[in-house]
């Protein structure tokens, strides 16, 4: 069965979540294009989620996203609707595409809706027990021809395959948030996989115009393998810095070092908040279990969870408070887990951190800078010549980040340095890969 045939009936499980809804938008558009070509065929996209309430908000979100994509693809869409003489203006064509896309969609809370699906995207919570239970149920409903693409970010896929009894009909297809925008998909192919599925996964990536990066089936894979260790390094640095600068001060310092001094899109604690502190913790748990590495934990994370300070995002995409307190998605305070309260950002710390070198360019400016390698090289060279707390912490962090990347290759998680760098630049939007010559 080829990809076009499998596309006739597709289900997304966990469709109302932030990853599931994005995947749903991508797949719905591909199905609408196929339907346009094959008018006599029926296409069905089942969007299944446990939450009726979340499903209720899904269509509004999807509509807004589909319109956005359609606006950007208007040149292509005008060709696609060329024979529809009644559709003249761009807005008419965009509306027709939105209608055609929505016409394939059915929403509901029952897994039974997936029974005719030959392709299932699973994007539910990163919880082994739940994933296995849902995959097992789906397998019973769907039969043995169905392929599963799981948006798993840390649990080994071979383990899920074995536990759910899928006989090699599952592949790790790890999209990055938000799936509509992020080009990266980390593809985890367990040794047990059926060949046809790996071919289908490859073709799907091309069709969705994604950058597929292979990762080996080791808990955490490349993305979270790097992210968790990078976060733990910052958390450990806090332990070292907090006596001199207070807990909140240390968090502020490490967040600023990672964002400004290391020229990243956001600071490490803002990133953990974005992902969700509880999600960060659950990834660590999975990795501890499957890798047997007990160092993959941190007491401050535990305290935050105990105090129910979890970060994460609201359904409208706005940031919830976590390590940092946000107003209009900008950090305005820091959580002090010892005092159990947010304290304002102490701007005096900037003086202690020290100034950035004169040739510093912010992340956003470098994103579109054609000579960014040269600029970064000059910048890090200047940083090395700077004797400040900021420079010292940044250079140690840069070296650690590189080591984490190299270890991922050494331990067989990634096949090459290039793959590690590709995940961080494409999935995390870094302007340089962790394995570099700047250290």
């Amino acid at each position, binding site marked *: 069965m080829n990809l076009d045939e499998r596309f006739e009936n597709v289900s997304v499980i966990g469709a109302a979540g932030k990853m599931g809804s994005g995947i749903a938008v991508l797949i719905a558009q591909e199905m609408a294009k196929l339907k346009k070509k094959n008018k006599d065929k029926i296409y069905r996209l089942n969007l299944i989620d446990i939450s009726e309430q979340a499903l209720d908000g899904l269509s509004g979100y999807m509509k807004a996203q589909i319109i956005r994509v359609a*606006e950007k693809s*208007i*040149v292509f869409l*005008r060709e696609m609707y060329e024979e529809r003489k009644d559709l*003249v*203006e*761009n*807005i008419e064509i965009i509306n027709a595409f939105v209608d055609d896309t929505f016409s394939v969609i059915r929403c509901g809370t029952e897994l039974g809706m997936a029974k005719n699906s030959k392709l299932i995207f699973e994007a539910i919570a990163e919880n082994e027990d739940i994933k296995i239970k849902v995959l097992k149920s789906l397998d019973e409903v769907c039969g043995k021809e169905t392929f599963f693409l799981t948006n798993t970010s840390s649990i080994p896929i071979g383990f899920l395959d074995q536990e759910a009894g899928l006989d090699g009909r599952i592949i790790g297809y790890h999209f990055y948030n938000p799936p509509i925008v992020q080009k990266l998909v980390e593809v985890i192919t367990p040794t047990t996989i059926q060949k046809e599925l790996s071919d289908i996964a490859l073709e799907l990536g091309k069709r969705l115009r994604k950058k597929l990066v292979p990762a080996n089936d080791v808990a955490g894979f490349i993305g979270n393998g790097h992210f968790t260790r990078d976060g733990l390094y910052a958390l450990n640095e806090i332990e070292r810095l907090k006596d001199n600068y207070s807990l909140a001060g240390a968090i502020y310092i490490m967040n600023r070092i990672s964002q400004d001094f290391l020229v990243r899109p956001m600071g490490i604690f803002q990133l953990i908040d974005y992902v969700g502190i509880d999600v960060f913790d659950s990834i660590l748990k999975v990795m501890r279990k499957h890798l047997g590495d007990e160092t993959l934990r941190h007491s401050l994370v535990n305290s935050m969870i105990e105090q129910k300070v979890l970060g994460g995002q609201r359904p409208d995409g706005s940031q919830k408070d976590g390590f940092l307190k946000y107003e209009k998605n900008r950090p305005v305070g820091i959580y002090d887990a010892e005092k159990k309260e947010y304290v304002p950002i102490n701007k005096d710390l900037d003086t202690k951190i020290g100034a950035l070198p004169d040739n510093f360019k912010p992340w956003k400016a470098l994103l579109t800078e054609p000579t960014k390698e040269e600029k970064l090289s000059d910048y890090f060279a200047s940083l090395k010549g700077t004797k400040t707390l900021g420079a010292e912490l940044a250079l140690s962090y840069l070296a650690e980040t590189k080591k984490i990347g190299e270890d991922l290759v050494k331990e067989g998680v990634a096949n090459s340095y290039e793959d590690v760098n590709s995940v961080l630049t494409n999935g995390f939007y870094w302007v340089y890969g962790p394995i570099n010559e700047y250290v």
Partner: protein
Amino acid sequence: MSFLRKPIYATAGYNTVSLGQGRKEFKPKEPRPGIEHYIKEAGRGALAQVKNPEAIDEGVMTNFMMARYNRQGNRPGFFPMIHPSFRYKPATGTEGACDSGGLGLAVACKTILADVADAVLVVGFEVQTTVKAVYGADYLAGAGWYKDRKKGHAHFFPGQFSDRAGACFEKFGKEKVREGMAHWYVQAIENARRNPKAQEYHNSISDLFATGMTPPNPKVFCEHINVYDCSKVSDAGCALIFASEEGLKKLGVEKKDAVEVVSWGQCEDDITNPQPDLTKLVASQKAASLAYERAGLSPKDIGVLEVHDCFSIAGLLMMEATGFAGYGEGADFVSAGKTKIDGEIPTNTTGGLIGYGHPVGASGVRQAVDLVHQLTGKASDCQIAMDSASPYGLMVSMGGSDITIVSMIFKKIE
């Protein structure tokens, strides 16, 4: 015999800032002023330069697509808002796509010649940032024939001029024309950087020529042009007063603050006919020739030029249509720097449609305002030194793809 049976003067020009992508104060997600704001600012900006605003007899309100961008018809109804004395005075609206403003200038002059008014205020305005460009493209497509819309490009007018660029590439050589277009972009931005009201005033790109040479991406835009070849989506208002000798006196304007309208040429092509030759602006050439002929002038008499550069390729073709470059030589002329502010014929000295912006229904008025400023020595940092041997300014305003044209010549008063 002179073309005009009595002298007509233009004075008191005013352009607002051209607001849109590129201006630092432009915030796409925040509310912005509507058409009333620009009409008032421009109209009152002009009136502030005359002693007796109540001496204005009539108004001409020029705009292209307010019915769609702003859900508003009835252009003349906004005239009385400008000054208390305007209530119950006559006003006319003009619409001729991107030449709406040009038509307004011609209507003002005809009204004065008809002896029914001594002083006419022309106010051009357009507010386009109310919708995304992908939807605005359909509104602007109204400047072409509606029956061509379906087969046209998603970005209809960029598509039309991309076709013109493609035809010129084929006929005159791609490299030469492409470079000419990039040089046009460079000139537009350099001039706009001297004009604080220009949309590209804040442009800080270091290598403008390389930017202008960006390869087109037909998957998301057009085959032969890039976004830098295009004029801007803009919100702005522009105003200019036309007056007879008597009108100037009544307004309290001294002649040194005015310029003389010497002639104009107005031309209309059939919108339902395919363009005869994509490598030429035939109607624009006819209008400019008519203006020259009526004034007894030729390109050598012109000291400053304002042409309609909705796209860089239109800028090159306009140099041919106005007689400064031979057929197929527009690109060479521009690449040689002859249209720069210190060149042989300073052209679009305040940035043109690519540099200042293209508030469609106001652009023709804006061109005339900038010529009046140059000829009266009020062009500030954009000012050129006028040679007494060539004391004339020529403009060509174009609507659609060479459909509705007004070309006008002004003379500096000695």
